[in-house]
Structures are given as structure tokens and as C-alpha cells.
């Protein structure tokens, strides 16, 4: 069954082709069947291939579809590579992707561009699968760029609203900054190891590079740049909240479950390099820690339900980065998987709530919905419990693994651990704030649950996953170096479990009991400043303004014929000038043409005589 692996990325691509080549003329039912069905089929093949991979007890499997090109000594193939990590990723992408597709057939029903939506979605899944199954750097980069393109297309899906176009462009440009670093990183890796094959490159690097050497540091830093851009970590995180402009299933699929975790996957895939550059690896953890705290605080101040979830995604990916930073590779992948379940559940349930509220997304205009939206309430609660890592829910197992490893890590891991613990408190606080604001309190609007098997069905399955995914054992032993078992003391464990719950209590106290007037607190004095500081992502926008925009405008002010500008403008002008001079030679006069040919001949003959 393993030789069916190639069908996994190909079937969604065929779905994309069918949906595209019919130019949107396919009826909605057929488009839905093709769109969701292709992912379902892909999942079936992924399952078949995956189970025989696990049954075969091999550490990896490659399948060459064809040799793309072999020019001179270089040979690049379309080769798929399956091991424990890509297996997990493949399951997450096809499985959760399928559920989201089914949900989307209900959510998007009636949209005039229904088929276009699913064609982008299928293309995205195909590109994402190529990204995780790629055997060589070229293919990986192609998948990487492919998902970026689809993300751009899908954020700007409702292109008639210019704001959506702006958000799409912002996301595209910001991830592009990261991609540029990553492309240089991949190229450097290729040049210094002499191979495009990822596994070979890892072996070569291990054999050639010295720990902490310049090339290791440079390559890992550059790759980190790409990962940070794609996974919305500091300092390139600001695009993700804006990406919420797209339809909600997109947010669930791309901006929660799959694409944004590509950065985590990239670092896990190249973990050998990071082991050779310990400083950069620690930097990964630090970035994760700061990001998770910052995003947690920001989530606390948001009023848009999707933006709260977006910041919580940024925060949870911060946990994964933290795990990578302390060498808990498998925990990072584990958390990636559990997060995919509960975050997709939360987004899709939020989508149901938004549908029920007639496209209202402001949580302050919701409230008391637990009676009207029974289904959504139950599902959202399960998702929230998963998110806050409530004992017994999936998030609990993965997050605890991360924190335990961080605590035991001796090289500065303790600070990361504390940050993670504080973040856990914040997670309770903002999650339950969201939950209480939406479902408790005074009822201001009537909501009517939109029902349907293709809406609630996937949600129930996701909820089951959000509860039980923690018990899944991910088969990554052969991929990552052995980790010693961590057995934190009972006290530490209790602290890890109970302390964050205080955040939940606080939320209950504030938002249900109404003991503190949050509006008043945030409206004046120090509270207002703090609120603004948190709301603006710890002043990131302000910082950007100060660090980049102000000096830039200052430079522009100081020097009217701005230096940098004049390089760009100057070279553009020079090129244009050359063009005009050249154009003058095309006079249209036959005699001049003949003379120019004669001069050409003269030139050649003189050269021939002289040389």
C-alpha cells in the first residue's frame, strides 16, 4: 500500500484541476463533492499508506515519481519522503483538512464563487502535502511557495472588498520577507553540502560542520527567518490577525491547523542543523516564549472573536517554538497535532456562531448564547478546555510535556519554563474571557443555530479528537534523538496543573460575577495605558513605527534626493534612458539599417584581422 503514497498529494491536485478547468460552471453540489471528496479520498490513501508504513516497521520510505531534471551532474527528482514526522503532518493535513472541507460545503453554500473557493482549497492541500512530503529542498520550497500563494488567494477571496485585498497583500509581503531569508538559507545549505536531498544534506552537515560554526549559525538563522514568517512569530507575527479577513474555514485550515505550523515542521525537519548551532536553537525558544506571552496579553484585549483565536494561535505556536528551543522535538510535533484538533474545532464553532449571529464577530455584542446555541456551546467548551490544557483533554498532555522538558533543561530553560507557565495562566484567562463573554452574561441578541450534518458532523468528530488526541502516540522515535523521560516532582506537577487554573477563576470572577468593571479599568489611567500596550501587541505596531517608518521618513525629509531612493529611481531612470537611446537606433529607415549591418561587418572583420 505504500506505493500509493503519490496519490495523497495528487488527488487534491486533480480536484483543483477539475474545479479550475470547468471555469466555475460546475453546479454547487458537484463542486462540493469534488472539493471535499478529493480530500476525503486523499485521506483514505494517506491512511492506507500510513498504516502499512507503521506495519512495515521501517524508519523511512521514499518514492520517486519521476526525475524532474538531470542536467550535468545535478539530479532533481519529484521524490516523496515519508517518516514519522511527515506521517503525522500528512494525517493532520488530510484528516482535519477533510473535516474542514466538509464543514465548508455548508458554510460557503450559496456563495457565487463556491467552486473557486474549493479549487483554491484543494490546491492548498496539495501544496501543503508536497511541502511536508518533499524529499529535496527544491520540492520543499515549491510547496512552501505554493501554500503562501494559496493563502494569499484565500485571504483575499472576497476580493470586492478592498480591505481584504490589503490584508491579503500584507500577509503575502510579510511571509515573503521570511521566504527571502529562507530561500537564501536553503541555497547556502545546498552549496555547502552539495546536495538538494534533505536527508543527505543533514548527514553531510553533521559530518562537515563544527558545532557553533559560522555556516551552521547562518543557515539556521536564515531558515528561522522563513519559519518565523510562515508561523507568525516575533517579529513577523502581525499578518496573522489580519489574515482573518478570509472566510472562517480558511482560518481553521490554513491559519490554525496546517500552514502556520509549517515553520515548526521546517525546524523539526532540519533539527540536525539546530543541534549544530545551540545558540540559534536557544533563540528559537526565546522567540517562542516572548511570542506566546505577547500574544496571550493581546488576545485578552481583542473584541473580534476570530482575532482572539488568531492571537491564541500565535501564542500556541509560540509554545511549539519553545519546545523546539529546548530540544523537545517530538513534543513540538505532538502539540502541533493536538492544537490542530482543538483550534480547528474552535474556529469552526466560531464560524457557526458567526453564522448564527448573522455575521456579527464582536464578542461584546454577543452574550448569554448558551441557551440558544446548545451545540456550539458544548463544542466550544470542549475546544476551550483543550486549549487551556485542562487535565484529561488533549492539550494537557502535549503542553505538559513541553513545560516538563523546559523545566528540566539546564541551559537557561528555566526562564523559558516560567514564561510558559505564565503563558498558561494567560491562556486560561483569555480563553475563558472569550467563553464567558460569548455564552454567559446578559443576552443581547437572538441567535439561531444553523443546523446540518455537514456543519455539526465534522465538529463532533473534531471534538472527539480534541478530547482524546492526547492519547495518540506519535511515531517519531526514529526521527529525533532520544529524549530522557522527565518525571517532575509531584509538587511541580501540581503547580503546573493548578496554577494556570487561577486564570480561569479570575476570568469567572471578572466576567461572570462582574466584580471588576473592565471597561472602567481599561478606560482610564494606568489601566488604559496597559490596555493599549497589550492591544497593540506590546507596542509592536508602535515599535515598527518608531524603528522603521520614522527614521525612513526622517531620512526622506533630511535628504530630498534621498540616497536609497535615488539608487532605485536612478537605476530605473538609467534603464529607461538606455531604452530611449536604444529606441533611437530603430529609426525605421532602410538605409540606416543597411549601414548598421555594414558597420557590424566592418567590426567583425577588423576584429578578425586584429585578433
Amino acid at each position, binding site marked *: 500500500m505504500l506505493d500509493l503514497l503519490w496519490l495523497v498529494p495528487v488527488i487534491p491536485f486533480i480536484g483543483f484541476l477539475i474545479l479550475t478547468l470547468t471555469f466555475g460552471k460546475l453546479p454547487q453540489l458537484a463542486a462540493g463533492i469534488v472539493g471535499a471528496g478529493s480530500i476525503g479520498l486523499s485521506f483514505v490513501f494517506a491512511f492506507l499508506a500510513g498504516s502499512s508504513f507503521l506495519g512495515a516497521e521501517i524508519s523511512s520510505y521514499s518514492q520517486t515519481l519521476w526525475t524532474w531534471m538531470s542536467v550535468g551532474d545535478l539530479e532533481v527528482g519529484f521524490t516523496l519522503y515519508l517518516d514519522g514526522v511527515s506521517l503525522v503532518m500528512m494525517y493532520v493535513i488530510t484528516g482535519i483538512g477533510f473535516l474542514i472541507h466538509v464543514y465548508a460545503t455548508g458554510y460557503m453554500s450559496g456563495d457565487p464563487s463556491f467552486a473557486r473557493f474549493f479549487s483554491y482549497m484543494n490546491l492548498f492541500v496539495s501544496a501543503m502535502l508536497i511541502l511536508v512530503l518533499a524529499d529535496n529542498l527544491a520540492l520543499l520550497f515549491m510547496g512552501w511557495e505554493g501554500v503562501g500563494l494559496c493563502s494569499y488567494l484565500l485571504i483575499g477571496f472576497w476580493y470586492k472588498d478592498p480591505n481584504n485585498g490589503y490584508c491579503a497583500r500584507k500577509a503575502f509581503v510579510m511571509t515573503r520577507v521570511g521566504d527571502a531569508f529562507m530561500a537564501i538559507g536553503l541555497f547556502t545549505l545546498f552549496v555547502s553540502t552539495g546536495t538538494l536531498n534533505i536527508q543527505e544534506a543533514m548527514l553531510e552537515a553533521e559530518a562537515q560542520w563544527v558545532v557553533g560554526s559560522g555556516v551552521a549559525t547562518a543557515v539556521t538563522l536564515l531558515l528561522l527567518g522563513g519559519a518565523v514568517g510562515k508561523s507568525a512569530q516575533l517579529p513577523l507575527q502581525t499578518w496573522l490577525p489580519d489574515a482573518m479577513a478570509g472566510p472562517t474555514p480558511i482560518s481553521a485550515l490554513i491559519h490554525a491547523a496546517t500552514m502556520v505550523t509549517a515553520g515548526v515542521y521546517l525546524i523539526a525537519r532540519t533539527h540536525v542543523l539546530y543541534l549544530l548551532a545551540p545558540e540559534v536553537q536557544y533563540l528559537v525558544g526565546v522567540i517562542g516564549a516572548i511570542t506566546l506571552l505577547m500574544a496571550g496579553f493581546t488576545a485578552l484585549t481583542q473584541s473580534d472573536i476570530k482575532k482572539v483565536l488568531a492571537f491564541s494561535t500565535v501564542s500556541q505556536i509560540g509554545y511549539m517554538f519553545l519546545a523546539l528551543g529546548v530540544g523537545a522535538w517530538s513534543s513540538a510535533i505532538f502539540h502541533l497535532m493536538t492544537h490542530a484538533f482543538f483550534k480547528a474545532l474552535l474556529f469552526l464553532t466560531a464560524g457557526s456562531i458567526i453564522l448564527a449571529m448573522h455575521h456579527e464577530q464582536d464578542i461584546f455584542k454577543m452574550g448569554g448564547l448558551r441557551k440558544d446555541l446548545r451545540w456550539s456551546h458544548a463544542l466550544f467548551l470542549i475546544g476551550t478546555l483543550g486549549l487551556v490544557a485542562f487535565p484529561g483533554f488533549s492539550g494537557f498532555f502535549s503542553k505538559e510535556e513541553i513545560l516538563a522538558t523546559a523545566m528540566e533543561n539546564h541551559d537557561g530553560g528555566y526562564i523559558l519554563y516560567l514564561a510558559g507557565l505564565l503563558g498558561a495562566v494567560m491562556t486560561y484567562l483569555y480563553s475563558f474571557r472569550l467563553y464567558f463573554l460569548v455564552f454567559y452574561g446578559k443576552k443581547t441578541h437572538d441567535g439561531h443555530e444553523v443546523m446540518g450534518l455537514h456543519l455539526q458532523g465534522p465538529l463532533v468528530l473534531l471534538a472527539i479528537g480534541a478530547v482524546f488526541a492526547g492519547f495518540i502516540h506519535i511515531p517519531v522515535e526514529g526521527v529525533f534523538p532520544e529524549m530522557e523521560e522527565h518525571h517532575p516532582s509531584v509538587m511541580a506537577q501540581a503547580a503546573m496543573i493548578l496554577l494556570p487554573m487561577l486564570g480561569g477563576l479570575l476570568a469567572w470572577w471578572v466576567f461572570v460575577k462582574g466584580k471588576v468593571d473592565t471597561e472602567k479599568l481599561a478606560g482610564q489611567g494606568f489601566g488604559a495605558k496597559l490596555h493599549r500596550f497589550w492591544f497593540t501587541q506590546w507596542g509592536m505596531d508602535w515599535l515598527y513605527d518608531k524603528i522603521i517608518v520614522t527614521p525612513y521618513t526622517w531620512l526622506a525629509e533630511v535628504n530630498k534626493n534621498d540616497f536609497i531612493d535615488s539608487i532605485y529611481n536612478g537605476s530605473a531612470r538609467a534603464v529607461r534612458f538606455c531604452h530611449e537611446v536604444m529606441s533611437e537606433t530603430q529609426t525605421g529607415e532602410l538605409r540606416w539599417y543597411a*549601414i548598421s549591418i*555594414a*558597420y557590424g*561587418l*566592418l567590426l567583425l*572583420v*577588423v576584429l*578578425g*584581422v586584429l585578433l
Partner: protein
Amino acid sequence: MSVLFYGSAIIAVLATLLVITRTNIVHALLYFIVSLLAIAVIFYTLGAPFAAALEIIVYAGAIMVMFLFVVMMLNLGQVTQDQEKAWLTPSVWIGPSIMAVPLLVAVIYAINLNQEQMAHTVVGGKEIGVALFGPYVLAVELASMLLLAGLVGAYHLARK
């Protein structure tokens, strides 16, 4: 023989010079024919009597007559001659002529005069015929297609 060669060469050069400087088309054509006849003589001195005959028959006899025919048909008379006089100002011809000098010098240098004299052999019509229908038979066939292309093209373009 060498007298014949060098004499004809001088005539050919002078006649050609007159061709490119005349303003009357018919005069120019006549000078061209003179030049062609002189070259035919050169062919003969070089031992290529068959080529000499063809030069006269095809070039002078057919191609030049074709020119003459078009000139007559278009009735290019005095007007053209005046026009040509006006166009052929020194400013027009000096540039190309000066450019021609280094080209000529380079070619003369390359040709590298005063090498030892070599014998020439006469290659007559028979040998050419044998070659044409031996190793070069394909060339003959292809030349026929070339002429066909010329024929069809001319037929189409010359139509009113």
C-alpha cells in the same frame, strides 16, 4: 592570358563604378552588362569556359533583361534621373565610401597578395555536367525548388 585578365579586371571595376554612380537607370544597366561581359572574359581566362557562357546567357541575357523590362514597364524617365541627381549628394555617399576603405584594406591584408603563382586547370562543361548529375544531383533538385519559390513569389507579388 594575364593581359586579358588584368585588362578585363580594370574594365570590370570601371564599369561597376559607373553602375553605382549613374543617375540614368538604363545607362547603369548597360554599364552593368559591360561589367558582366568583362567578368565573363575573366572566367574564361581562369579556365571556366562554361561559367563564362552562363554569365553571359543568364546574367546578362536574362536577369539584366528582366531589370530592363521592369524599367521600361514603369516608364522611369527624366523624372527619376533628376531625382537621382538630387539624391546622390556627397553627404550621402561619402560616409559609406569612407567606411568601405578600411573594409577593403582589411580584406586586402587578409588576402595577403604576392604569394607564389599557381597553375590553373581548365574545368569544362563535361566535368560540370558529370558533377551535377553525380554528387550534386540533390543540389540540382533543390535549385529547382528554389526557382519554384521565386516563381510563385514573383507571380503573386507582380499581380495587379
